[in-house]
């Protein structure tokens, strides 16, 4: 039935477009954009097709299998489950919107799109790979272009020199885009090293001479191995997911990155990390996960509250949004740490919700910054007068981030809190709820200072609402936020089936500890 | 003793000669400052190698060693050609060919 290679199409359409862009000697901006957007549209259509065609009942569907190196068991093995579908959808929506959000880029736009498309190919690949080696390969493809995207197209921000490490500021050029780019890349690659070690340890221990996730997932790993491989994977993937204290690449990186890159990075790439922790770390190493769950959860709680408080202190618009990502990714990790059905459903859902929300945020910030060339919230005010639509979209994004029912954020956060309350440590839920309130504090404060108040300052008189293609990203993302907020079962049923399947497998291979069990 | 004298210089004699020549060449490469002088020292080392090859060829009764030596000579000539061209280039850029002035590799 599913003879058409939908997943390959989704994954490789951006790559093909990137190659085409490199090959055609055009300097036409429109042609570049049409090629890029067409490919993202192909992926979007493919994702929708897969999401609709996914049969209830769970398991991996839309399987494809192409051998690569058979002697050590490396194959291009593709397939999706409920989690994969949700994240595929998220990715294709974000990149579709992101391609539009970069429409006004002028500097080296062709190269920009090439890198962006290569990156997104990696992201798609991670979500559909059923081979750990290929998974890792795609993971690296997704991480690396970021260096150039930030280093070349980024922006620089002056950071006040202070604190005990004051002497480092000049030395490292803290705040510069090159600094942000190299910091992000180095931190994520350090994480990758941990991941690679973990993966190889699992491959070695399983002894099946196969990198297939299913084969490796069926293997039972000795407890001693799980006890160190899981933390390695958690740290490795967690760095990308913004786990405290390895989140500091995120504010600088997201603040320096150009609009579409921030959208994609905060919206999708950070999810790769969380997805890795859950899919590889927790599902495949249940004993290690159960033993370390309390650490993962406690750190996630720190992320939530700490990120929100740090966001409250920021005055730079992009930093506010970036820290809110740190806080919200904490919610994802919290859901993962609960090892409950609600928590995991919520974690996956939060990935989708936060991706859409933060994508919308960064698209808006890009719009504002594109006109003001200023990101300092204190310099703004009264923007609702000249850019009312931006104000509306910003408010919607804010509301989703603080968990307003009717928007996707609430569905996600509430499930995570439910999971946390029924998980090993119920007080996590309290911290999560507190984080949601703190989010309301800083995000509405920012919205008030930017959009409300007496008319815009004199130097911002020429502001205007989005024009033309700029609308696309905003409308698409907002529509999805509302859709997934009102009708969660569009994807929740599939997520739930998959989650339950995984948790069943876990409880069969390794009886969960009493504290981490799923209460009825 | 007489036997040795009668037999003429053996393989090891030639090898030791080549070794001494090679070492002298190494000393030259390490101690001279002028690029041309260094190239000359390199030539000495190349010659030492060629002597080795020919000596082995002689004592094994196989002309292959000579062939290699010929290759070696040709390579050395090519190397000298390119090397001197580089020297000229350096001289043109820096008005001097003192190797101590060439430390761009220092980060």
């Amino acid at each position, binding site marked *: 039935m599913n003879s058409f290679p939908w997943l390959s199409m989704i994954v490789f359409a951006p790559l093909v477009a990137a190659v085409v862009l490199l090959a055609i000697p055009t300097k036409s901006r429109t042609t570049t954009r049409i090629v890029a957007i067409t490919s993202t549209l192909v992926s979007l259509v493919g994702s929708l097709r897969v999401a609709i065609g996914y049969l209830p009942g*769970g*398991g991996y569907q839309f399987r494809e299998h192409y051998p690569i190196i058979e002697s050590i068991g490396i194959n291009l093995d593709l397939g999706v489950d409920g989690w994969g579908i949700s994240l595929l959808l998220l990715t294709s929506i974000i990149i579709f919107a992101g391609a539009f959000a970069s429409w006004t880029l002028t500097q080296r736009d062709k190269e920009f799109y090439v890198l962006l498309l290569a990156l997104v190919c990696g992201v798609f690949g991670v979500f559909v790979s059923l081979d750990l080696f290929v998974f890792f390969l795609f993971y690296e493809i997704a991480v690396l272009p970021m260096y150039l995207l930030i280093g070349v197209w980024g922006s620089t921000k002056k950071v006040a020199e*202070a*604190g*005990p*490490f004051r002497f*480092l500021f000049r*030395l*490292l050029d803290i705040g510069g885009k090159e600094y942000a780019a190299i*910091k992000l890349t180095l*931190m994520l690659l350090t994480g990758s090293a941990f991941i690679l070690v973990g993966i190889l340890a699992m491959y070695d221990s399983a002894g099946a001479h196969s990198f297939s996730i299913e084969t490796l*997932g069926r293997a039972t790993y000795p407890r001693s191995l799980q006890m160190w491989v899981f933390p390695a994977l958690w740290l490795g993937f967690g760095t990308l997911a913004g786990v*405290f*204290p390895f989140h*500091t690449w995120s504010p600088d990186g997201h603040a320096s990155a150009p609009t579409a890159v921030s959208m994609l990075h905060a919206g999708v790439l950070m999810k790769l990390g969380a997805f890795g922790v859950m899919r590889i770390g927790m599902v495949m190493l249940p004993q290690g996960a159960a033993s370390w769950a309390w650490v993962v959860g406690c750190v996630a709680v720190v992320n939530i509250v*700490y990120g929100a*408080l*740090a966001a*409250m*202190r920021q005055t730079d618009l992009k930093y506010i949004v970036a820290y809110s990502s740190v806080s919200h990714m904490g919610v994802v990790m919290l859901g993962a740490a609960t090892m409950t*059905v*609600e928590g995991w459903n919520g974690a996956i859902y939060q990935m989708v919700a936060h991706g859409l929300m933060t994508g919308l945020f960064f698209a808006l910030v890009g719009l504002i910054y594109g006109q003001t060339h200023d990101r300092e919230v204190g310099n703004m005010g009264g923007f*609702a*007068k000249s850019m009312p639509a931006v104000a509306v979209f910003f408010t919607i994004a804010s509301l989703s981030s*603080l968990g*307003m*029912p*009717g928007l996707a954020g*609430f569905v996600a956060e509430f499930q995570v809190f*439910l999971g946390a*309350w*029924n998980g090993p440590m*119920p007080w996590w*839920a309290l911290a999560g*709820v507190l984080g*949601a*309130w703190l989010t*309301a504090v*800083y995000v*509405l404060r920012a919205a*008030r200072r930017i*959009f*409300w*108040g*007496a*008319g815009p300052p004199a130097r911002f008189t020429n502001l205007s609402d989005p024009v033309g293609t700029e609308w696309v990203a905003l409308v698409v993302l907002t529509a999805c936020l509302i859709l997934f907020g009102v009708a969660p*079962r569009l994807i929740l*049923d599939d997520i*739930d089936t998959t989650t*339950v*399947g*995984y948790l069943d*497998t876990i409880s069969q291979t390794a009886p969960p500890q009493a504290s981490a069990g799923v209460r009825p | 003793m007489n036997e040795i004298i009668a037999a003429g210089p053996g393989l090891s004699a030639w090898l030791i000669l080549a070794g001494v020549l090679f070492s002298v060449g190494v000393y030259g*490469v*390490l101690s001279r400052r002028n690029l041309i002088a260094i190239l000359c020292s390199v030539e000495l080392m190349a010659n030492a190698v060629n002597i080795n090859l020919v000596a082995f060829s002689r004592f094994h009764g196989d002309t292959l060693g000579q062939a290699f030596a010929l290759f070696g000579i040709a390579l050395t000539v090519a190397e000298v050609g390119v090397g001197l061209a580089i020297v000229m280039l350096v001289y043109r850029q820096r008005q001097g060919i003192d*190797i101590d002035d060439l*430390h761009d*590799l*220092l*980060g």
Partner: protein
Amino acid sequence: MTSTTSSADASPPPIFPLHADHLVLNLALIALLLPLACFVLLALVWPLRRAGRLAGWLSATVAVISFGASARLLMLVVGGEAPLTETVGWLVRDGKVIASMGVHIDGISASMLAVVTLVAACVQVYSLGYMAEDSLPAQGRYFTYHSLFITAMGGLVLAPNLLQLFAGWELVGLCSYLLIGFYWAKPSAGQAAVKAFWVTKFADMGLIVGLLALYGATGTFAWDAHLVGIWATAVPALLFMGVMGKSAQVPLHIWLPDAMEGPTPVSALLHAATMVAAGVYLIVRAYPLFELAPSLLLAMTWIGASTALIAAATAIVQDDIKKVLAYSTCSQLGYMIAALGSGQIMGGYFHLTTHAFFKSLLFLGAGAAIHAVHSNDIHDMGGLWKTTRISALLFITGSLALVGVPIFAGFFSKDLILEEMLEAGQYVPVAMLVLGAGLTAFYMTRVIVIAYFGDAAEGAEHAHEAPWTMLLPMGALGLLAVGAGFGGDLLATLWGQQYHFGMTPIGITTSVIGLGGIALGIMRYGTSTWTADLLGGLRGFILSGPVDRFWDSAWRQGLLPFAQVVGWFDRYIVDGLINMVAWLFIFLADRIKRFQTGRAQDYVFAVVLGVVAFIAYGMVGA
């Protein structure tokens, strides 16, 4: 990996059941979804929204239709329609629905829906006149928010479980935020809006944790779940925290007076009649949970009584007519909470209903006065009686109802509360409430005397009577402010309770005290000869806003500096340590770099040294 879930989730989720022959359900859906459709229409079709007037008429028409449907629904329910619940699954867990959305129609929700839509319809019609001076796009925006509010409030009222109630609860909070901040260009409006949101959201933390605990204990969000042990007290206590925020109970009432920054009709609808009463409604709805927690009920009584007294005392010294009414609302909500705490849901709910009518009337009357003189200060209104007689009369009607003068609506409900509480033996709270009633009479009299009969103020002399769009809804509400008190029987029937009005000592006492308050007010403010400042010291203390100051310092000296510290810590310590790692490598590289002199001969030397070492190793090894 094969799925092991049950086949329950294999069937597609059911489509929302729209039975053509089920009148009750259809009426509820009309009341709920028509405003939603109006909201979506106005939100998406911006030319229509920016047309302003048209959007207003559309929205008001929808509100009236919505009220019509609710009224018909109420009549059906009164006529004996059985309670009805229709839901669709919303959240799933392990293939089973854990939370659903839908409607639950019974006496409580139907009557509340009728009240809400009635006041909403009145307020929207009123707004057509009141907002006419605003710009057209602003009017469009205003009515868009109002349509959303009716939907949200309807969703809250008709909620079949506490989760949907919570969703509606948050959405009405959103509407409140948007409408308080309606004049967003005014800094004070913006601050009031976020303050309202933050304070209620702060309280909602309790509500949401309560929901989590409820789910943790029972696996559902049903309000009639049977809780045992500590949860029997903890869950309703947590829910009550949310109520304290939404229904403005001391010390979380601070947002309500500030919320008066919004347009006056908004204050009437959201911040007097319906939204703030949502907390009371929640308690009524979830009373099966609350009644298992006697200690909580006692606390509620005291909190309610304190709020009633403190807010009433605060209202006395306000000069802003809307602030007087805002504190009055706090105070009346205190009555309701106190009543519910004493186990008297009938009394509390009855007062909610009558209060919705007369307080929205009062706000609309205040709005008419403000509309006339373009000022909120009662001293700027002096002598309005001469120029705007109809609205003055309606305002006085509302005041009499609020004060609890016999025959007027407030008398019946307040009397019922006090009577029932006295029966329950809550003597001290009753005394506080009675005293509060006296203060109520005093401050309302003060407002009326100063605003309508005082020395003529400049602006008031040229004031014009409000247009019919404003007077008509006020008249409707005026009728209810007079007559709603006689609806007690109806309400009791709906609830299956007994209610007979009878003149009791406490009722007489309250009436006497109320009249005494009126007399005192007239004496104090009506004649300038009696100058003794009854409240001199108290006035200064109240105006300094002690509770506000507490929260303000918690915000300024607690949370903000803490956030500063965290932000600083992140930037300069956590990030600093990460950067230190980078520095460490740079430092090491700097040291190692010294081996790289950049001189070719040194490299050759190293190569030869290596070769020598290799040969030596080979020889020794061999």
